[in-house]
């Protein structure tokens, strides 16, 4: 091309469209997944060290900053889980059930239901086994 073409800059690209902003939120949610995993890892490390250490970890978790972090993290976890299942059909080959293609909605619903079910199960088990 022997014409002086103009290339537009990409700065601020994700602020220009609601789809991109939702995408960036989805990507940011993985940061909170990592942070929460580190919190749980610290808990396991304290558990290994004995009762005193574990109680110290539990006490730290009860602080106002910790509660605030966990509320924010929960919000991002819900975003993370929902967006994960929302894109899951795109990563799978077509599935035929009884001669008809399985709808994306069914895959998303099944995944979300499984996540809710597993969460409820964990919640019930933890609730039932608390001392």
């Amino acid at each position, binding site marked *: 091309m022997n*014409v002086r*073409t*103009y290339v537009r800059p990409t700065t601020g690209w994700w602020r220009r469209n609601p789809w991109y902003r939702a995408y960036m939120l989805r990507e940011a949610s993985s940061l909170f997944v990592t942070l929460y995993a580190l919190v749980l890892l610290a808990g396991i490390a304290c558990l290994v060290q004995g009762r005193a250490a574990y109680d110290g970890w539990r006490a730290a978790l009860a602080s106002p900053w910790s509660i605030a972090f966990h509320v924010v993290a929960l919000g991002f976890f819900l975003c993370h889980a929902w967006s994960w299942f929302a894109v899951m059909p795109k990563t799978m080959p077509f599935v035929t059930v009884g001669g008809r*293609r399985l709808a994306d909605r069914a895959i998303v619903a099944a995944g979300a239901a499984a996540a809710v079910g597993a969460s409820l199960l964990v919640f019930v088990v933890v609730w039932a086994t608390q001392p």
Partner: protein
Amino acid sequence: MQTTRTIAIECMRYNPETDVAPRFQSYDVPFTDDMSVLQGLQYIKDHLDGSLTFRWSCRMAICGSCGGMLNGIPSLTCQSFLRDYHPGGVRVEPLEHFPIVRDLVIDQSDFLAKLESVTPWLVPREPQPPAGEPNRQTPAQMDAYYQYSQCINCLLCYAACPQYALTPAFTGPAALALLHRYNADSRDGGRAQRMEIVNAEEGVWSCTLVGYCSEVCPKGVDPARAINQNKINSTKDYFAHLLMPRGKGGG
């Protein structure tokens, strides 16, 4: 009888011979409810400013020529209607992530090169004489690739893809969807030839499943699905070569 209203169409203008950077120019266009944005642009060119330059051809969303950004959304101007942008008006810009040649016309040569690179033809499994047996295919076999064959090369998906913006070497949604169209065709035996493109960093692995490409596609091609399914294939290919390094080959 249709009522005639007026809408402001703001067009990006760029003349490579005189302009350093693009600017905007607004036109007041009378329109009826059945008029597309393309017809609005044609009104401008015919009655208001003959220098406005834009691509179009079929006016029916099959040629892929008229892509542009309408209020920041990748759209076909022939398939978007002025009534939907009234009274706020519509800002028409060239497709994002491509260099601007003039006004609303972009340079798509990068895409054309990528299209050629994906071996976009049926590679026969065995050599066939010209008057050989016709290929046979069940409806289910055609269903496996049909939607990916509907691409009209309109480039809305490239305008939608932030990874193409940030990594210009990315092969991109339409090219990879076409690649998958041939891989998924039961008549084709060229999968091995295409794996190098698939496996490359600029192949499927530059995609982070933003998914906006599939959202803006006017033909329901779903390039996001085509690319992300091939991440599985690429992974399998990687491990196959790891375990059997002496050329698994296989079409």
